[in-house]
C-alpha cells in the first residue's frame, strides 16, 4: 500500500530516484572509477573539463580527476550520514520513548539532558565535539549523531505520550505484559511514522554537517576525498579553475535535495493530516 502511494507521490518519487542514483554511483565506484581518485598526476594539473582527455569534470590542483573523487566521496558521505543518523535515532528514540512511557521524574531527567544538548546550535556542537575527539572518520559520526539525539528524543516522547493512553496498552498491562514488551512490541510500531520522516530529514542535514566539518578541515582528512574537503582545497584555486568548486557542490546539493524530497513526500504519504499543507 505504501509503495504504491510512494509511486504516485511525485515529490517522494523524485527523492527516491535521486538517492538511488547516488547508490548506483557508489556501487559502480567499488568496481570502476574513471581515474585513480588519490594518485597525484603532475602532467594534468587543473585541467578543464573535456571529453577528449576523459576528465569530464576536470582535474584538481594535484591533477586528480574530479569525477572520480566525487564518486569516491559519495561513499564517505552516505556512510557517515547513515551511521550518524542511526546513532542519533537509536539513542534519541530510546531516551524519548522511555521518558514518555515512564513519565514523572524519569521523564524530567531524560528530557532535561535532551534540552541541554539542544542548547547548542548543531554545527557548533559538531565542531566542538570534533575539536575534542580529534579528526578521525568515526568521530565525525559521533559528532553529528549527538546533534540528533534531542530531536529524536522529543519526537518519540511526544508520539509515545499520544499513544500510551490507548485501550490496548491497558489491556496488555492487565495481561501482565512487561514494560519492555509493551513499549517495543505495542507502542514503538505505532510511532514509527514521525520517526521515519525525521530519519530522512536527519540524513539530509547530516550530509550538510559532514561537508561543513570537512570543509573546515575538521572532518574527513585528505587525501581521502569527501565533498567537503574537495571544496576546501578548491578555495585556493577556484578563481583559476571554477570546476574544482562547482561540481562537488552540486554533488552535495542534489543528494541533500533528494533526502529532503523523500522526507517531505513521506510526510504526505504517512501523515495524511498534513496533506493540504503541501
Amino acid at each position, binding site marked *: 500500500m505504501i509503495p504504491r502511494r510512494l509511486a504516485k507521490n*511525485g*515529490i517522494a518519487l523524485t527523492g527516491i530516484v535521486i538517492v538511488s542514483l547516488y547508490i548506483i554511483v557508489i556501487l559502480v565506484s567499488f568496481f570502476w572509477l574513471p581515474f585513480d581518485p588519490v594518485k597525484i598526476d603532475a602532467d594534468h594539473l587543473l585541467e578543464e573539463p573535456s571529453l577528449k582527455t576523459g576528465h569530464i569534470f576536470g582535474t584538481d590542483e594535484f591533477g586528480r580527476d574530479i569525477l572520480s573523487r566525487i564518486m569516491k566521496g559519495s561513499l564517505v558521505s552516505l556512510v557517515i550520514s547513515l551511521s550518524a543518523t542511526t546513532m542519533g535515532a537509536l539513542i534519541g528514540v530510546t531516551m524519548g520513548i522511555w521518558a514518555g512511557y515512564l513519565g514523572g521524574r524519569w521523564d524530567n531527567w531524560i528530557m*532535561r*539532558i535532551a*534540552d*541541554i*544538548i*539542544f*542548547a*547548542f*546550535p*548543531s*554545527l*557548533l556542537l559538531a*565542531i*566542538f*565535539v*570534533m*575539536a*575534542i575527539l580529534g579528526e578521525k572518520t568515526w568521530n565525525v559520526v559521533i559528532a553529528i549523531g549527538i546533534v540528533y539525539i534531542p530531536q529524536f528524543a*522529543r519526537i518519540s516522547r*511526544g508520539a509515545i505520550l499520544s499513544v500510551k493512553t490507548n485501550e490496548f496498552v491497558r489491556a496488555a498491562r492487565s495481561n501482565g505484559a512487561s514494560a519492555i514488551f509493551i513499549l517495543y512490541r505495542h507502542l514503538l510500531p505505532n510511532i514509527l511514522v514521525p520517526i521515519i520522516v525525521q530519519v530522512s530529514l536527519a540524513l*539530509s542535514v547530516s550530509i*550538510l554537517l559532514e*561537508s*561543513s566539518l570537512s*570543509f*573546515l*578541515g*575538521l572532518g574527513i582528512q585528505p587525501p581521502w576525498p569527501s565533498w567537503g574537503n574537495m*571544496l576546501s582545497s*578548491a*578555495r585556493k584555486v*577556484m*578563481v583559476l579553475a*571554477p570546476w574544482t*568548486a*562547482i561540481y562537488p*557542490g552540486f554533488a*552535495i*546539493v542534489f543528494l*541533500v*535535495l533528494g533526502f*529532503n*524530497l523523500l522526507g*517531505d513526500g513521506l510526510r504526505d504519504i504517512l501523515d495524511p493530516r498534513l496533506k*493540504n*499543507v*503541501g
Partner: protein
Amino acid sequence: MESNVGRYIAKRLLSLIPVLFGVSLIVFFLVRLIPGSALQMYLGTQVEATAEQMVELKRIFGEDRPVLVLYVEWLGRLLQGDFGISLRTGREVLPDILSRLPLSLELTVMALLIALLFGIPQGILASLKRNPFVDVLNRVVGLLGLSLPQFWLAALMVLFFSGFRGWIPMGNYVGFFQDPLRNIQMLLLPSLAIGIGLAAVIMRYTRNSMLEVLEMDYIRTARAKGLRKRSVIFGHALKNAILPVITVAGFNTGYLLGGAIVIEEVFALPGMGRLALYAIYQRDYPVIQGIVLVIAAIFVLVNLATDLIYAMADPRIRLDDSGRKS
C-alpha cells in the same frame, strides 16, 4: 490573562538555569576528556620548568585538586566574567571573544533580515497565486533552500564577484562604527550566503501558514462584509499567519550563527567563528570553551525570546515546545 503570561515568563526564565548549568557541565567535562593535560600542552611549547615552578604551575593549572573542586572554581570565575587565559596568546579569553562577537552577531542579524525580507513577501505571493505548477515550484524551492550548503554558496559568490573590487571582504575589514555603509557593503554577500537558504524555508512556511489562515471563518466573514481583498490579506490574515513564521525564524538563529562561523572563514572575516577555528587548530581549549559557552548562551536566550514573543502574541499560549525545528 496578564498573570498567566507573567507566570509563563517566570517559568521559562527559571527553566534556563538548569539548562545553562548543564551546558557549563558539558563544556567543562568534555574538554577534560582530551588526552594530555592543559599543563602538558602549555609546557609543550615552553622550556623546562624547575621543581618549584612545577609546583606553582600545577597549582595554577589545578592539577593538585580534585576535578569537582576545579569545576566549582571554574564556574565561580565564569560568573564573575573570568573565562580564563588563552594557552597560545596568554591573553584573557572573554575580552577577545567580546571584541569579535559584534561582527558575528551583525552577520547573523543581517542574514535573518535577508531571510525575512525575501521569504515573507514571496510566501504571501505564493499563497495568493495557487495553481499546481506554482505549488510544486514553491515546495521544491523551499526544499532547495534547505539543501544548499552555505559555504558553497559563499564560494560561488567569491567566484562570481571576484572581479568587483570591494564586494568581497578580504584583508582590511571595516567596522560598522568606522564606516557603516562600507561595512554593510562588505557584509552583504556573506550574509546573503548565510540567509538565502533560510529565506526559501521562510517562504514556504509563510505560504503554508497563510493558506491555513485564509481558510478560516473569520476571513470569510471579513470578505463577506465586503472588505477589500488587500485589507483582508494584510489586515486580517497576515497578522495571524506571521506568528508561526517568526517562531521558525527564531528557532533557526542557531543555524544562522553556525553559518556565520563557516562563512567568516570563507570571506576571511575576523569574527568569532574564525577565532573558534583558529583556537581549534591550535588546541587552545580555554578559548574554545569560552566561545562555545557564549554561543550556547546566546542561542538559549534567543530561543527563550522567541518563545516569549509567541506567548505574548498568541493569547492561547502554547506551553509545549513542539514548534522547534533546528
